[in-house]
């Protein structure tokens, strides 16, 4: 056994147990002299030095800048070097000299400022009482100087900024209170010079404002939805599982906003104007409507068909057509903007700034999940970390041992799985297509439908949801045979295949709705709305069943029947994809069924509780710690593109190219939906004061030159930003080199 590094072979630093006594014994060094109860016992030094020969060598380099950043040592580039052996009489005597200076350690100085004091002491290795006293004075005056500077800085700020800055100070509570008191005393004294009579009044007012602000802050916190549950989940399962629930909450907000907007601008005016719904007499409410959405619901405001195309005359003239069009358009545009912004900020935080080169350091120092409070989760996280460290240490050895034939075999397996996955996805799409065609042949345009016919409409959603549950199991099976270089690539491959499957199914359905349904039905938009309603409801039922089978049964199988499999983990990627798919259905359906977001809201709300119960009862914390932040970026990216873009394109295509149905809905009789805007502009031309709106419409929105110029400008700006980024990267490299060069001297 050789002693190579400063840690030594028998490494007491590594093997210390966690019992309090052993740890405390090692920790007792002269640096803890702030404890007024402890005596200054020089006998401790010997004990400490025996225990940690290596550790102390780091502490004596003078001239380094202090960790607090508030202080800069005036000892400058003192290159006094401590020699390797800490047991010299010099150092022990100078520990003792430090022991003889209790005055420096009392009062405002806590262990957080101690380091600076000790460094100051290190300038005078030969302990001499007079020198020591001088050093103490110098340090104390420097400390006070810095404090005065800080107070001056704080006084110049506004009250809110002051509070924020004080909160951010990395000092102990007593020191912060001290500084705050001084700042406030200074402020009140300056105030008293100017306004003698108003000081009390002003002070009380500002105090009550601040108290009010604090009260509002605490009230806002209680309103946060599900805060306690999120904390519990994060504590027991870690942050990667928490990302799923946060994502669910975020999507719920989208739906709440959509519901409020739609209900407020489209449905309420209609209800206010005309409370009686015009339902034909031969249609009554049967229970099946809740599942199929047809029948009784067809004539309510649930669907496009329930809205009239007239201008409602009430308190104001309310143009339903414009209201319908603009509400939906504005909502989609706002969604797009929110998604782009959150995607960009998430990308910036989680991808651009993160450096893959420091993976080992990251693993050791940054990957510990401090939110875990459950013992089992902690234990598993530790195992996890150990396995990851071992893997990364041994991966270099593995890389060399792969032969050419093995690699070819791997590539072959990859190609085969991708081919099979694509075939499965295309096959599902084709079967849905033929199923839809068969369904259309059976259905008729005339109302009312018999019970059997309505039940038949449930066939397509049932098959779609079944495919969405079963086919991903095949994908997971393929995944088991393949070998990926990193765990993340494995998750991405699985995600891409699932996305492909869902996109192909949705694509086929949309094709069917855009091309076949308008020809067949006279009032086709409500039919599409109903199809979407059915998809949403059946999807919800299958999600609940999926929780049951996926997690509950797996738990039972894993614990009782086949203990080798173990307790299941919560599959975050699959669940997030299901959420994204559900939200896409809602986005497509907004145009055809304005109240669909209400159903979606209810669905997500119930789903949260179901998933939470299923998680806490059936699952264990994940064995592999993923990088939660990067996964979240991927989820938002998936949400936006392809799903949101796809939904937006469908709605835009419907509004632009398809002819609205002639007999029902707000756009009856028009050539296409967008002509609503041209008609409105045409009406506006008659009014002289709104010339500018007409001008904007004709020269900006309808002119191609404008878009061409805009594209050119955007491309130029992108190029400039790209060059800026390249320049900054070079600058970072240069600076890094300079840091190394500077420290060498």
């Amino acid at each position, binding site marked *: 056994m050789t002693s*190579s*590094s*400063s*840690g030594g072979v028998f*490494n007491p*630093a*590594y093997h*210390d147990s*966690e019992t*309090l006594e052993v*740890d405390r014994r090692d*920790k007792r060094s002269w640096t803890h002299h*702030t*404890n007024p109860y*402890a005596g200054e016992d020089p006998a401790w030094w010997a004990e400490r030095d025996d225990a940690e020969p*290596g*550790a*102390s*060598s*780091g*502490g004596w380099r003078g001239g380094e*800048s202090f960790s607090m950043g508030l202080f800069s040592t005036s000892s400058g580039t003192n290159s006094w070097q401590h020699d390797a052996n800490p047991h010299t009489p010099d150092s022990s005597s100078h520990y003792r000299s430090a022991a003889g200076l209790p005055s420096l350690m009392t009062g405002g100085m*806590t*262990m*957080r400022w101690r380091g600076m004091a000790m460094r100051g002491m290190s300038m005078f290795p030969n302990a001499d009482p007079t020198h020591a006293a001088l050093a103490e004075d110098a340090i104390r005056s420097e400390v006070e100087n810095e404090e005065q500077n800080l107070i001056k800085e704080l006084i110049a700020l506004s009250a809110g900024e002051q509070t924020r800055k004080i*909160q*951010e100070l*990395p000092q102990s*509570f*007593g020191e*912060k*209170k001290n500084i*705050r008191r001084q700042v406030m005393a200074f402020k009140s004294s300056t105030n008293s010079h100017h306004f003698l009579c108003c000081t009390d009044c002003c002070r009380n007012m500002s105090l009550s404002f601040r108290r009010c602000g*604090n*009260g509002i802050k*605490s009230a806002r916190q209680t309103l946060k939805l599900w805060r306690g549950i999120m*904390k519990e989940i994060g504590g027991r399962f870690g*942050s990667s599982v928490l990302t799923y629930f946060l994502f669910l909450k975020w999507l719920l907000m989208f739906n709440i906003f959509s519901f409020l907007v739609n209900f407020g601008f489209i449905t309420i005016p209609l209800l206010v104007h005309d409370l009686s719904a015009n339902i034909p007499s031969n249609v009554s409410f049967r229970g099946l409507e809740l599942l199929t959405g047809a029948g009784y619901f067809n004539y309510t405001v649930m669907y496009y068909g329930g809205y009239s195309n007239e201008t409602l005359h009430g308190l104001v003239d309310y143009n339903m057509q414009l209201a319908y069009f603009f509400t939906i358009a504005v909502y989609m545009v706002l969604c797009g903007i929110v998604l782009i912004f959150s995607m960009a900020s998430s990308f910036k*935080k*989680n991808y651009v700034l*993160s450096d893959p*080169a420091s993976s*080992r*350091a*990251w693993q050791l*120092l*940054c990957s*510990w999940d*401090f939110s*875990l*409070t459950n*013992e089992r989760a902690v234990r598993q996280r*530790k195992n996890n970390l150990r396995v990851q*460290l*071992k893997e990364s240490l041994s991966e270099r050895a593995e890389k060399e041992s792969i032969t050419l034939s093995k690699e070819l075999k791997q590539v072959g397996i990859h190609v085969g799985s991708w081919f099979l996955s694509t075939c499965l996805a295309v096959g599902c799409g084709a079967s849905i297509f033929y199923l839809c065609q068969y369904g259309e042949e059976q259905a008729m345009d005339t109302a009312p439908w018999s019970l059997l016919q309505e039940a038949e409409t449930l066939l397509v959603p049932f098959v779609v949801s079944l495919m969405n549950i079963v086919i991903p199991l095949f994908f997971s099976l393929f995944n088991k045979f393949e070998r990926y270089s990193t765990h993340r690539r494995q998750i991405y491959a699985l995600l891409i295949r699932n996305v492909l499957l869902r996109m192909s199914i949705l694509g086929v359905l949309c094709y069917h709705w855009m091309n076949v349904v308008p020809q067949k039905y006279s009032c086709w938009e409500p039919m599409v709305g109903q199809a979407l309603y059915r998809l949403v409801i059946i999807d919800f039922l299958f999600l609940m069943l999926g929780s049951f089978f996926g997690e509950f049964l797996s738990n039972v199988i894993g614990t009782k029947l086949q203990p080798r499999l173990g307790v299941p983990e919560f599959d975050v990627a699959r669940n997030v994809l299901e959420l994204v798919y559900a939200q896409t259905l809602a986005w497509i359906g907004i145009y055809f069924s304005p109240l669909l977001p209400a159903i979606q809201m209810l669905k997500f709300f119930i789903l949260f509780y179901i998933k939470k119960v299923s998680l806490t009862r059936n699952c264990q914390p994940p064995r592999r710690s993923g990088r*939660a*932040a990067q996964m979240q970026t991927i989820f938002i990216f998936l949400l936006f593109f392809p799903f949101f873009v796809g939904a937006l394109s469908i709605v835009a295509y419907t509004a632009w190219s398809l002819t609205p149905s002639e007999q029902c809905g707000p756009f009856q009789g028009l050539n296409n939906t967008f002509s609503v805007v041209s008609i409105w502009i045409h009406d506006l031309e008659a009014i002289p004061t709104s010339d500018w709106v007409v001008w904007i419409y004709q020269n900006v929105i309808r002119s191609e030159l404008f878009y061409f110029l805009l594209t050119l400008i955007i491309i130029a700006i992108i190029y400039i930003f790209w060059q800026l980024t390249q320049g900054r990267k070079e600058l970072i490299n240069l600076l890094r080199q300079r*840091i*190394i060069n500077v*420290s060498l001297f």
Partner: protein
Amino acid sequence: MGNKQTIFTAQQLDAYQDCTYFTRKEILRLFYRYRDLAPQLVPLDYTNHPDVKLPYELIGSMPELKDNPFRQRIAEVFSEDGQGNMTLNDFLDMFSVLSEMAPRDLKAYYAFKIYDFNDDDFICKSDLEKTLNKLTRNELTEDEVRMVCEKVIDEADLDNDGRLSLEDFQHMIVRAPDFLRYRNSDT
């Protein structure tokens, strides 16, 4: 706002609210948590600033900290005497920094202090080895320990002095977005 509580004066509460990230209700709730650890030691009236310190053993047995491998270091860093015995001020300060409202820089500063086991304001190799011990519990071999620590210093040490200063650590934190993202405290 009804000032029905008699534990703190209004000025004390204002000072707490200004110096920590907590609201009034949370401060009171935390006070009751503190008191529950040792009801006979902690008086119900803090208006005359009683000097009460709870020993580390009680702090370390709180459910939020009991399973945290770094609980002792956390208590030591935030306590005034450096031994883990905490007054109410230290207690509030600790949970304020650990709460989700504290900014990342502040947390990074304290995380650095937590990982710095020998309190020399640098994370040197022995500090890293101790961190590794807390996180893996004696299951790595000596060689692996040495390799991991060397690798960490190689990757993160910018000014090449063989140990990590606060700036090195902060530079690494900036590029690690997962760090301390969901650090929780139960208030």
